[in-house]
């Protein structure tokens, strides 16, 4: 590690997701191996002819802390991120920081798609005059980062990476850069998505990206199982408070873990197909940036979306990046429980990675009935696995349509 570069501490966590409406309930449900996929309680299948009518929805009651006027001015994606940000900020102890030294980086894959589509319905059905005047601030992709910056009075910069399913992890990586570059002492980072909508389900189903296991949705997300057949759509937000080590130490903050390394690559290969080469480059860069060795990586929270090609390809890319030093690794795809949060995924999985390093336990990958024999690493198969003591490192991967490859390494505090 260079002497001039500040270490980046993770000092606060918050989330709204299918497993729970806060960190404690989410972690408990994750360690218990809880499936959240359910048949949707609506008529979309009958009305629109959807072939896939199940998803992982945010737990009921998760947004109860929002006032009604707040809810009306935020798209669901903005509601998730606002609640998660307030949790994370409180969890960090509401740090005192100069506004010009506080930043926000919150990504999303799509932005306010519910608002966009709802208000188009309003135009068609009730006329242009009835369109909600808050439509633009609600639908814009930067809505969450902007709203959170106003909530917290953050003036060092508010940024919005949009890189499909890598957005949340890219936000973590860019937040680390803000601190290292000296632009901020504290940065609130994360990702959010709320796109369980008939149009989105139809679009993903039509490219055969979704699991079609409509008769048994609870076991549909099954990364590394031989019968995996696609991802399950999820929703929610994850927010982390990143802080320079010096700033955290000066106020005696609890440090969950350090965000020690990040790798960012682009495939320039295909709009939807992954590239092992790009993934391996991102992982290698993150490990080098963290100044850890391959043998220090004891846990990988994989992108692992439960697709036939993607899951094994990712692990092979990790093995390549680690020069085959993988015997010490236990891999988890928490998407087996949460579904795929799209722009929120990399953020929630950064939270899981942080908590794994903090509590020294890897949450399980559920629904593995027959492990794919091509799986090149040990999987935390249907049960959590204890991680070793001492200095450990956890790798989180997130990849997005368009060839966005993000890897983040968290190290134990």
């Amino acid at each position, binding site marked *: 590690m260079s002497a001039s570069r500040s270490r980046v501490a993770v000092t606060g966590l918050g989330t709204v997701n299918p497993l729970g409406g806060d960190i404690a309930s989410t972690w408990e449900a994750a360690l218990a191996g809880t499936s959240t996929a359910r048949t949707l309680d609506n008529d979309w299948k009958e009305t629109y002819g959807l072939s896939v009518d199940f998803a992982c929805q945010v737990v009921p009651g998760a947004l109860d802390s929002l*006032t*009604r*006027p*707040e809810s*009306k001015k935020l798209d669901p994606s903005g509601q998730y991120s606002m609640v998660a940000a307030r949790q994370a900020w409180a969890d960090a102890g509401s740090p005192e920081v100069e506004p010009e030294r506080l930043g926000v980086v919150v990504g999303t894959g799509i932005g306010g798609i519910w608002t966009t589509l709802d208000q188009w319905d309003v135009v068609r059905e009730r006329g242009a*005059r*009835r*369109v*909600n*005047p*808050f439509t633009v*601030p609600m639908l814009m992709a930067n809505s969450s980062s902007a709203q959170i910056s106003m909530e917290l009075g953050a003036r060092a910069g508010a940024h919005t990476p949009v890189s499909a399913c890598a957005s949340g992890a890219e936000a973590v990586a860019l937040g680390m850069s803000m601190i290292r570059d000296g632009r901020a002492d504290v940065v609130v980072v994360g990702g959010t998505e709320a796109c369980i909508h008939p149009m989105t389900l139809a679009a993903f189903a039509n490219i055969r990206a979704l699991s079609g296991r409509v008769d048994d949705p609870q076991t549909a997300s099954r990364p590394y199982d031989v019968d995996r057949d696609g991802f399950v759509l999820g929703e929610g937000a994850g927010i982390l408070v990143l802080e320079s080590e010096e700033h955290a130490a000066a106020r005696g903050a609890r440090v969950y873990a350090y965000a020690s390394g990040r790798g960012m690559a682009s495939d320039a290969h295909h709009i939807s197909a992954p590239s092992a080469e790009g993934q391996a480059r991102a992982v290698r860069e993150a490990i080098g940036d963290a100044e850890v060795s391959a043998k220090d990586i004891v846990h990988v929270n994989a992108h692992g979306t439960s697709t036939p090609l993607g899951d094994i390809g990712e692990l092979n890319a990790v093995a390549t990046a680690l020069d085959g030093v993988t015997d010490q690794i236990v891999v988890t795809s928490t998407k087996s429980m949460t579904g795929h949060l799209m722009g929120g995924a990399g953020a929630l999985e950064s939270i899981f990675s942080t908590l794994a390093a903090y509590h020294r336990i890897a949450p399980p990958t559920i629904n593995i009935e027959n492990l794919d024999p091509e799986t090149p690493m040990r999987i935390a198969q249907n049960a959590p696995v204890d991680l070793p003591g001492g200095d450990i490192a956890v790798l989180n991967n997130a990849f997005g349509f368009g060839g966005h490859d993000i890897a983040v390494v968290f190290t134990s505090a």
Partner: protein
Amino acid sequence: MAHTENEILAGLAEIVNEETGVATEDVQLAKSFTDDLDIDSISMMTIVVNAEEKFDVRIPDEEVKNLATVGDAVKFIEGAQS
């Protein structure tokens, strides 16, 4: 059927409360939307759009800037009812 001044005030107060969280009892005729009730321009437009629907009137955009107080809005809506 035309609404009375009191009905319009009560209905407007409900809209303001719904859109901004300002208590209905604070929505009084003499109160300024911006200075007293702290309502920004976009929130004001949501109030206008909802009031148009609730009272079946049209409040032209060029008229909105003249609606400084709750009383101004009530008076306009009262006069705009057919």
